[in-house]
């Protein structure tokens, strides 16, 4: 049976270190299996958060060989076993213990975003009617499992720690899901530009690269939102065009 060496970060907010663990690898194993095996046999006090083991709960986010990944979706067969595999907590968030980070900042950010505000119901029974082509676009954004890997990899948060000025890709996608929703009537563009800091995104596409749900975060979410900001704040010809259209339509 194959074996692999893991360098797992052990410690808390005060500090820590990488410790080596050697464990057997069987066919079909993912990194989370190996970490659980190490926890069961060698390090009972290793703190690791996980739940569904199916890439849907977003609990087991960590950095494997330096890249943000869901441990449950990272196959051992994809990793080179000839050198140690590093597993460490997400670097964009404060460490609680070992592989566990405090991601509560994300939930506080989400509370500040303007809520869904639908138009009056289309039917007397209080329901709405939507066409499939209208809802297709935002359905992609609804796939988000809130693993926060995109927040972790975003250099604006990770390296520049601009938590007060920038909401990060996860919540830009959340705003996109609301803003592009065919029933929604709320306007979030001013907040996007100012309080939520969309201008800090410099389109590195790292968020798209790490998304386990393969959401095209940059191309389908952030850039279309940037274009909506341009509509409202940086396009004088567009303002004239819209004014003329309004005049012509009475």
């Amino acid at each position: 049976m194959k074996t692999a060496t893991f360098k797992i970060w052990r410690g808390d907010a005060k500090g820590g270190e990488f410790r080596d663990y050697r464990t057997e690898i069987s066919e079909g194993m993912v990194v989370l299996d190996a970490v659980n095996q190490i926890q069961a046999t060698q390090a009972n006090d290793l703190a690791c958060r996980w739940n569904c083991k199916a890439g849907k709960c977003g609990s087991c986010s960590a950095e494997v060989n330096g890249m943000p990944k869901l441990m449950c979706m990272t196959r051992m067969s994809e990793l080179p076993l000839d050198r140690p595999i590093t597993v460490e907590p997400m670097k964009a968030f404060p460490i609680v213990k070992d592989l566990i980070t405090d991601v509560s900042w994300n939930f506080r950010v989400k509370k500040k975003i303007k809520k869904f505000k639908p138009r009056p119901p289309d039917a007397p029974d209080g329901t709405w009617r939507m066409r499939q082509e209208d809802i297709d676009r935002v359905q992609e954004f609804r796939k988000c499992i809130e693993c926060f890997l995109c927040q972790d990899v975003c250099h604006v948060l990770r390296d520049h720690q601009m938590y007060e000025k920038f909401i990060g890709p996860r919540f830009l996608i959340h705003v996109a899901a609301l803003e592009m929703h065919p029933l929604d009537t709320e306007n979030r563009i001013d907040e996007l530009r100012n309080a939520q800091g969309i201008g800090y995104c410099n389109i590195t596409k790292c968020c798209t690269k790490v998304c386990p749900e393969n959401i095209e975060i940059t191309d389908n979410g952030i850039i279309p939102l940037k274009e909506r900001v341009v509509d409202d704040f940086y396009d004088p010809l567009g303002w004239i065009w819209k004014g003329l259209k309004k005049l012509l339509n009475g």
Partner: protein
Amino acid sequence: MNGATTLPRRNSFGETMRADVWWTQPLLVFVGLSIFIVYSTWAAFQGTHYFFGNYISPFYSPEIFGFSPHSWFGPKPDWWPDWFIFSPALLVLWAPGGFRVTCYYYRGAYYKAFWADPPACTVGEPRKSYWGERSFPLIMQNAHRYFLYLALFFILVLTYDVWKALWFVNPVTGKASLGIGIGTLVLAINVVLLGGYTFGCHSLRHLAGGFLDQFSKSPACYRAYVCVSCFNRRHMLWAWLSLFWVGFADLYVRLCSMGILHDVRLF
């Protein structure tokens, strides 16, 4: 963030736990863009060997003022300052250049390759300060859609250049006849690749229909949005192919004009 003091230490420049060769992609982008910038700048300042019979280099088209038969308004204008080198390319090349500089794909690519902001995903940066695209000069990137309007006009002009490249003048009779040379194909492929790049532009995607919340109310806009989205999915590929080919098209016309290459007439 509450408890910011407990955040992990920032990576220093180039520091990462990544085990792959992360520097390959930014290096390739750096080399590719540098070669193009150096060549196109050199070619733009030459002011000679930019046309060959019915072919004109895409770097010099539209030739607003110039010395070739392709010139729209005659030779060098009187108001052009004597102390500044004149080249027809200098009058037009800023527009497609601006389109590429403000392009969403290139922005992400050159921020990494030229400015290390960041050098690659999860790799430490050289600077602590960060302004993003909120302050001058990068706030000017928001002018991308204006460069798009110009780029769409250039596609029309370059398409007309291909049409002209189909007509060869017989030096004896002076009559023009329909034909295709290697140069015609080079210029035609150039238009196809530039078209693929321009019609996949993120700004065009927005203007075509992306600004709508209810596509079903504007079926024509929705169809345009779907069409642009189709090109947009391979925007990076179109960007690189068109960049390479537009440089190659200039080189081809230049070498033909200098007599180094012989343009083969296919029929």
